[in-house]
């Protein structure tokens, strides 16, 4: 795990929580959307908060796919769940939502889970890789990255 890879994991967590917060902020301008009147969603995608939120979620998806290309799913998911904590902090301090005692306990549990998994190996070692992959990769590069 290089510093650059930890940055990608941080990006997954931060982009997701920033994207969700921006969508939440934008949807408060729009108000409730009912399933019978989906035209409100067309108004929603013209809202600057929503547009920014969607851009952040696209960045999240790119970072998430990048992380999955070099780390296990069972590593990436807990390691990036620190985003839930960031989201709760944004909700409290920027969207002025109530964060209850129970939620702080939840934040603590997630943080514990993150620190648990982040200290372990990121990728299950695979002795044999498909031949086509090995041909394409420069071997010394492949080894130094893992």
């Amino acid at each position, binding site marked *: 795990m290089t510093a650059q890879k930890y940055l990608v994991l941080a990006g997954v967590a931060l982009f997701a929580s920033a994207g969700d917060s921006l969508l939440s902020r934008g949807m408060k301008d729009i108000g409730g959307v009912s399933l019978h009147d989906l035209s409100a969603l067309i108004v929603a995608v013209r809202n600057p908060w929503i547009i920014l939120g969607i851009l952040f979620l696209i960045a999240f998806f790119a970072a998430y*796919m990048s992380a*999955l290309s070099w780390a296990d799913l*069972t590593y990436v*998911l807990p390691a990036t769940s620190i985003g839930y904590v960031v989201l709760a902090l944004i909700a409290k301090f920027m969207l002025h939502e109530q964060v209850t005692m129970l939620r702080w306990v939840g934040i603590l*549990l997630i943080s514990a889970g*993150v620190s*648990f998994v982040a200290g372990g190996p990121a990728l299950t070692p695979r002795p044999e890789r498909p031949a086509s992959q090995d041909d394409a*990769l420069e071997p010394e590069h492949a080894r130094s990255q893992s």
Partner: protein
Amino acid sequence: MRHAYTWGAILVIVITSVTGDVLLSHAMKSVGDVGELYRRTGLVQALGRILGNLNFVLGIVAMAAAFFSLLFALSWGDVSLVAPASASLTFVGNAVAARMFLNERVDRRRWIAAGLVACGVALLAG
């Protein structure tokens, strides 16, 4: 009866999102390190390699199905049950599925992490 519907919807959300995560993870593993790929072949080639992967496309379809079933369930179910239950069950489901289908080594450290995060998410969204 209403309860049965809500749990049915939660089950559908969990199954579709676990399927999506497993397919996407499998696709990205077969594509290989994208940073490496980008440096070697450039952006267009790298994107083509990812988008041309069948599992990637199927994973996106499963994720979209999960998203819309969540929206659908939220429109009539209890938010305080549907959102935390589906999010935290997805964490546990992913650990089981990654072990079964992706052959990931889910050691005790990872089980504990998945369990702690699942409990935390349930509390957070509850």
